[in-house]
């Protein structure tokens, strides 16, 4: 068992950290205020290969191994969770789905464009009253060689900046995933969803007003949406967990620095037992989260990442991000509540993780189901 990074992974991590410090960190507060990740920053990310992070070189990607990719998200999230989230939706969902489920033609059409940053990927799965394929209302009716998509998708991350949407709708064959270019006729963006945290991520509803798409735009098989989700869900949860890890690490970092600077009752508050308990508990949680995430990344390298391990990572990530953010804003006292200090933004972002791609409840259900199954019990 070897817990060390390869030389390449270590080098990548330094490079990601460098990019985050130079390009992301200085813009982080503005991105939260302007509620966008600027195109200029994404262009720079594309030049570094971050928009084709997992894409093979044949399609113009950087072909990072899963561990390096997780490090990318973690390092970027240490500076700004929104930027990491934009990369995550683009890479872990849109590009991955095409890479793992797409036809050769689809790969050639989309992967290079996605990798170069010519098109940002978005993921349109949720609906106002549905977060699962079973209750999905959007329809894809067959019309000759085409499908006509109709319905409303909700909480579409990257919606405002996307060049490509992966849209889920119910075809006669069952729930199906489609690749739809942003300029398709009948596609309409709704008003921006304003969110608690990760404000840089542009989230909107997406209206499908009889969008005609050719049969070739079906991703995987008609009726094969579940197969697409099965391919991407676990890794996607893991990469969300990596963003949470970066956020929690950042929060801890900010809290510790503040505690060293701040003096009350004649000494640095870092010397007070209560603050040390905050720091120790947070470090404990961050490091155990990191272990689980790196273990999952290592499983992913071997193609063995499973539902349970990924759900454990995401559930723990939800909790750690919130708890560490919460303790560190408390460590800041009144200063934490003032937006001149980064901790306020990080706290908001950390809390936002939980509501995206798997709440605590659904992770608990997935974990329990899996654990019970090992005892021969089908829940």
């Amino acid at each position, binding site marked *: 068992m070897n817990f060390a990074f390869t030389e390449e992974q270590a080098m990548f991590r330094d490079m990601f950290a460098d990019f985050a410090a130079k390009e992301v960190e200085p813009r982080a507060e503005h991105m939260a205020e302007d509620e966008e990740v600027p195109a200029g920053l994404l262009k720079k990310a594309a030049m570094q290969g971050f928009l084709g992070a997992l894409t093979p070189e044949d399609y113009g990607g950087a072909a990072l191994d899963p561990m390096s990719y997780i490090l990318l998200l973690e390092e970027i999230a240490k500076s700004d969770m929104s930027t990491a989230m934009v990369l995550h939706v683009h890479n872990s969902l849109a590009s991955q789905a095409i890479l793992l489920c797409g036809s050769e033609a689809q790969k050639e059409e989309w992967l290079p464009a996605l990798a170069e940053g010519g098109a940002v990927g978005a993921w349109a799965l*949720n609906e106002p009253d549905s*977060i699962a394929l079973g209750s999905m209302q959007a329809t894809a009716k067959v019309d000759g060689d085409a499908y006509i998509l109709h319905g409303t998708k909700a*909480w579409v991350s990257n919606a405002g900046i996307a060049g490509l949407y992966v849209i889920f709708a119910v075809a006669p064959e069952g729930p199906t995933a489609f690749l739809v270019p942003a300029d398709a006729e009948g596609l309409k963006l709704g008003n921006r*969803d*304003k*969110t*608690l*945290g990760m404000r840089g991520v542009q989230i909107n509803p997406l209206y499908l007003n009889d969008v005609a798409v050719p049969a070739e735009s079906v991703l995987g098989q008609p009726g094969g949406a579940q197969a697409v989700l099965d391919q991407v869900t676990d890794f996607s949860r893991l990469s969300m967990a990596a963003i949470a890890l970066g956020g929690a690490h950042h929060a801890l970092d900010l809290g510790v620095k503040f505690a060293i600077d701040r*003096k*009350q*009752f004649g000494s640095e508050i870092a010397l*007070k037992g*209560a*603050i040390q308990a905050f720091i120790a508990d947070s470090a404990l949680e961050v490091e155990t989260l990191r272990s689980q995430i790196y273990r999952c990344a290592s499983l992913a390298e071997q193609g063995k990442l499973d539902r349970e391990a990924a759900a454990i990572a995401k559930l723990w990530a939800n909790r750690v991000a*919130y708890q560490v953010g919460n303790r560190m*804003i*408390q460590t800041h*006292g*009144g200063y*934490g*509540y*003032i*937006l*001149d200090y980064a901790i*306020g933004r990080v*706290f*908001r972002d950390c*809390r*936002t993780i*939980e*509501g*995206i791609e798997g*709440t*605590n*409840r659904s992770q*608990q259900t997935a974990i329990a189901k899996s654990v019970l199954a090992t005892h021969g019990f089908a829940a």
Partner: protein
Amino acid sequence: MDLTLPKEYDLLRHMIRDVMENEFAPVAEEADEKAEVPFEAIKVAAKAGLFGIPFPQEYGGSGAGELGYVILMEEISRVDSAMATVVGAHIGIAAMAVYVDGSRALKEKYLTPMAQGAKIGAFCLTEPAAGSDAAAIKTRAIRSNGNWVINGTKIYISNGPFADLFSVLAVTDPALGARGGVTAFVVEKEMGTKIGVVEKKLGIRASATSEVIFDEVEVPQANVIGQEGLGFVTFMKTLDLGRVTVGAASLGGAQKALEMIIDYARLAEKYGMPLAHQQQVQFMIADLYSWNEMLRGLVYRTAWMVDNHRPFAREAYVCKLMGSEIASKAVSYAMEIHGALGLSRDYPLERAFRDARIAEIFEGTNEIQRIIIARDLLREVGVHIEP
């Protein structure tokens, strides 16, 4: 032991809820987003006497005591926590400091207009180096021609940008420090206070917080609150009262969160049935209800102790500590249950989450509350601790 509330308090609660739901609820979201204080609604609240609820009628108040004040804060927070901060800073501490130790003349001059809402108050204690460690203040008042000249900067002053009157703590004798060398004053805006940086905040954004700068501000001797040199005692007594109402405000917020959870659990479906049928959700509801009821008992009992002149300081710390943590927990549960909806700024939960977070921080962080409760208990067995 009769624990029913006298009926006038039911009507008082009814009136306050009416004002909050009709005047504040419709503007709360926009006020938060734009970080603007809803002055129009505040005028209506003042007319209904909301700013004088605890004070005697001879000073323009309602004469409803601490019990009335607890109800006020609970009902305000059910709708708009930012307003609980405006009101808490104004009456709970700024006006309260004048009430607890001011002379009759000082009360007539300053408490009455504050109770009527004609003037808004701010409580000036915190300084850059004096947060939890309040005794470390540096603002200085020096005697000059029978008056006092105040110099110094106060930070994070709620209501600072629009207050007319400031209850200010300043050092009058550095040799004595907090033990006899610190004095409380009422300072009028017209005496020359200046507003420094107006802070951008994570939550309670419809309240306004700023630096208040005293640069050679001359204040008459008559504006000393209570006895010269005993200002620290006045301010600490005032904060004791304020803590009770942080508990009350937390109770209102927690109650609202519970109502939102129950409502959502009843309606929202997951896996083909309402969330209410999930045991995890049921347990959250049950726990939250239990905590709220404990908090309610604590807050109302403490208010009764205040009104009946019993020592209440330790209970007040517990009100602030438990109240703020229960409220945070309540909103946190609500967030967890609402999923993505809880993250939306178009839904009031997101604002409640940001707002609730301040209660664990302001009027003394919860760490300080814990230290003081422990110090108090340990002192009884002869152990003396330092923070």
